[in-house]
């Protein structure tokens, strides 16, 4: 379980997260919606320990990300997929995937490579194991990025706008994989602007506005007139997103 309790985060005078509470249970897909600058990325970066909290607490399976000796364990339990892929440019797709399992989990290289190849095959990149990032399309890079996170066998997958750097065709490739993962029971925290897709795969949707979690509802209720849509800010956001 990922537990975010009363988290506050400020950059200098700017408060970006203002008392956020969120629980993600195993098996859930929680999508985070909200307009640009509302603090979605910052929330993800607090969960994986890239940002320090000003107040509050975040635990991943009871490991507190603010405690240095817990952080390593917390990080083993979550995998992050980035908007701009962030693949290691000097390594092949397969090397990108096997580095952490071998170095962090101390897996035997041969096993890690066999699993890495299987992961690549499962996302349709079985023949690109030896390609470098610069030789792959954006959609292919992001699929490698997903494999890299999955190779650590995380309990939770954190995804921050993983398709927003991709054109529609590549977006479809990547969303297709995420849909399969969701159907297979992978727990995900999914920051996105793909409203329709979020609606299809999410068990819950939360709406962030100026650092505050305005709405946290099961998907069907979020899109119901009496639920999320009853919030003027949510209604406004959704109608604007649908127009774009």
């Amino acid at each position, binding site marked *: 379980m990922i537990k975010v309790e009363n988290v506050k985060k400020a950059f200098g005078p700017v408060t970006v997260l203002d008392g956020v509470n969120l629980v993600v249970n195993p098996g859930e897909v929680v999508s985070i919606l909200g307009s640009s600058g509302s603090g979605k990325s910052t929330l993800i970066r607090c969960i994986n320990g890239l940002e320090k909290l000003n107040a509050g607490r975040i635990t991943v399976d009871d490991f507190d990300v603010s405690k240095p000796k817990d952080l390593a364990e917390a*990080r083993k339990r979550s*995998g992050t997929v980035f908007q701009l892929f*962030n693949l*290691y440019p000097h390594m092949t797709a397969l090397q990108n995937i096997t*580095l*952490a399992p071998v*170095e*962090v989990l101390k897996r035997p290289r041969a096993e890690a490579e066999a699993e890495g190849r299987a992961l690549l095959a499962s996302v349709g990149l079985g023949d690109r194991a030896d390609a470098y990032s610069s030789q792959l399309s954006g959609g292919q890079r992001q699929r490698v990025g997903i494999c890299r996170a999955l190779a650590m066998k995380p309990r939770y997958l954190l995804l921050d706008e993983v398709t927003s750097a991709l054109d529609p065709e590549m977006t479809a490739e990547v969303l297709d994989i995420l849909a399969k993962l969701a159907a297979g029971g992978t727990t995900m925290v999914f920051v996105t602007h793909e409203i329709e897709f979020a609606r299809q795969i999410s068990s819950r949707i939360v709406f962030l506005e100026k650092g505050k979690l305005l709405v946290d509802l099961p998907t069907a209720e979020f899109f119901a007139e009496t639920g999320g849509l009853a919030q003027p800010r949510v209604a406004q956001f959704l109608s604007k997103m649908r127009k774009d």
Partner: protein
Amino acid sequence: MLPGAGRPGGSPPPFDPLDSPVRSVTVKPVSLNGARVRLDLTILIPHLGFLAEGALLTAEVCALALVGSVLLGMLVAIARTSSNKWIGRLAFAYVDLFRNVPFIVQLFFFYYGLPEIGIYIDAFTTGVVALSISGGAYASDAIRAGILAIDNGILEAAEVSGLSKRVTFTRIVLPIALRTSVRPLGSVLINMILTSSILSTITLNELTGQAKIVASDTFRPFEVYVVLLVVYAALTYLVSIGISLLHRRLNRDLVEQVS
């Protein structure tokens, strides 16, 4: 100015203190008489082994100093990107100091200065150490630039995947930094080869030192130094070819065609 050009006809040329002496020097074929210009390399044949010994010593000193300066350059580059203020300052001071003092002064300090306070180091070691220290100052610049150019997102990906600082540095930061810094490091190495000729001033008979000896033994400095010019040019040319190959290898993902 051509003689007589632009001068009013008949009148004597105005006195020009700069004109006449300069012209007399440049026009007179001072030492270019055929006999002295003839290049007879065969006279060097008996000395080739001796010169080769010197070349080998140059190569040895430079190879060791290359390793020394790259290692030192890495350490200093890490120190300069360190979050510890004092380590950073110390590293900056080192780089500033050794870039702003002539190499020969550093060398004399190590070889002739240190014995005064009881530290004796032989010429070979002094040469390697001095070249490493001064090369390290430049190498750290090249490596630091490579480190600073790394996209922060890549480092964050390594961090969240749980890689230790050490593994992140050796497997990610350094190899990526070297992709860009290998060329500037090549210039540092070439400079080092050229600078190593100064080691002859502390009795280390590397290539230039041996050449000086041959020149004074044979009284044929022209031939000797022609050979020296060619050998240094060839040596640095080979090194730059090697650097280019290494650069291609490190950046192979950008070179290879998509299959």
